[in-house]
């Protein structure tokens, strides 16, 4: 890689040398079998090669130029971008193929970890055993928040999960802030100033008068906030 820096005034191309670490694939015969191995790896972790620079080391096989072209195409079809080729004679490569690389040195890579299956973030929960006072702001994006007491007017609770208030909710409650639209808000008496789930909110004004001061739960039905009695 030779980045060039162009200065506006003097138009001089600066060429610099820099070394990078790439993954080296060394195909072996039979190529078909080797490609099947790649497919199996991709089946286990589809994004394993995304964004990784890959170099093809063709020293173990003897391929004609058309065969090399075919191989590179097969690999790129699998969403693997080939950065360069090594281990062949320059005559085998033409301009349409990745450039020939020389002088590669072995180096240790981090042991190739099969990418962990996207694990859901550990959901924890926060317990508050005293009322939340006016002016206090409880922010807990990692999970549910439970309050053993009331939430005063002028206080706010922001949770990544659900919010449970064993008391009167007078302040603001914002649940599911990390995009969790399944989060709910529960309270023993609803007198909230503002309720929000995953960004969809409702203020006290819009709260049905018949629900006020009763046990209630708030949940998202698509894009609509539903507040229903809890009993």
């Amino acid at each position, binding site marked *: 890689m030779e980045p060039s820096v162009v200065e506006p005034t003097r138009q001089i191309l600066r060429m610099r040398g820099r070394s990078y670490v790439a993954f080296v694939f060394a195909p072996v015969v039979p190529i078909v079998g080797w490609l099947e191995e790649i497919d199996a790896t991709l089946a286990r972790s589809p994004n394993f090669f995304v964004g990784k620079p890959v170099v093809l080391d063709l020293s173990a096989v003897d391929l004609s130029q058309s065969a090399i072209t075919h191989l590179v195409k097969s690999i790129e079809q699998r969403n693997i971008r080939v950065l360069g080729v090594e281990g062949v004679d320059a005559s085998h490569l033409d301009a349409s193929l990745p450039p020939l690389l020389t002088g590669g040195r072995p180096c240790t890579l981090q042991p190739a970890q099969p990418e962990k299956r996207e694990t859901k973030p550990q959901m924890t929960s926060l317990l508050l055993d*005293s*009322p939340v*006072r*006016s*002016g*206090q702001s409880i922010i807990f994006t990692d999970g549910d928040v439970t309050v053993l*007491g*009331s939430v*005063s*007017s*002028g*206080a706010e609770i922001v949770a990544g999960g659900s919010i449970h208030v064993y008391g*009167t909710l*007078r302040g603001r409650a914002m649940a599911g802030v990390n995009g969790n639209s399944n989060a709910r808000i529960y309270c023993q008496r609803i007198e909230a100033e503002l309720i929000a789930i995953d960004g969809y909110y409702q203020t006290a004004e819009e709260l049905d008068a018949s629900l006020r001061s009763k046990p209630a739960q708030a949940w998202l039905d698509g894009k609509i906030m539903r507040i229903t009695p809890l009993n």
Partner: protein
Amino acid sequence: MAKVLVVTSGKGGVGKTTSTAAIGAALAQAGQKVVVVDFDVGLRNLDLVLGAERRVVFDLINVVQGIAKLPQALIRDKRLENLWLLPASQTKDKDALTEEGVGRIIDELRGSCDWVLCDSPAGIERGAMLAMRYADEAIIVTNPEVSSVRDSDRIIGMLDSKTVRAEKGERVEKHVLIARYDAARAARGEMITIDDILEILATPLLGIIPESQDVLRASNVGSPVTLNSPSSAPARAYADATKRLLGETVPMMVPTERKGLMNLLRGRRAA
């Protein structure tokens, strides 16, 4: 060792200074050695309510700055020998108060009396913060109206986070004092009820002080209401509150309109 008690509220004009003077005088009458400290720098009132405004030489700021020693600034009450006043400065402002200076003064006072009552200014800024910083106990004065209750709730939150005790993981013992309770309006349902106040604030009730002309008369003559008219309704309510502060169990009386007829309720305490 003295108990440091802050009389605070958040909202202004609810009765902090009146209560500090009344309870301070009642404690002194009960034999306790009491120093009342005015933290309302620039807007001092405690000296007026105690009738000491013509004897102020040195004040809290002078002591913080080291210009005067504490005994030089303390003013003894003429009527109660156990009651002392440390007045605030009227000419300076709150920025002259430093946390370290206040800490020093509180420590010095702790050693020489039984009670240090800190009369907090209104608000949640520096003056109020410093008044509550070293407190062991707090009286939150609340009027039975919504804005006062919300401000009191805010102040309670700060007592649990901005005091030295809270920072050490200990608790500041809190009491709610409902002041300016108007029995006539309560009977008409025009005031937020006591139960609602206690439910919102979730703090034990120390007393209910009725609205009364006696309070204004007392402050006009420069005497705490408990001294000036001890048989008046507010004075008796303050006396009861003081007894509860000292650990006695006194049944809570909700002030009613009709004089002479008291509704005795069982001691009402909130969770």
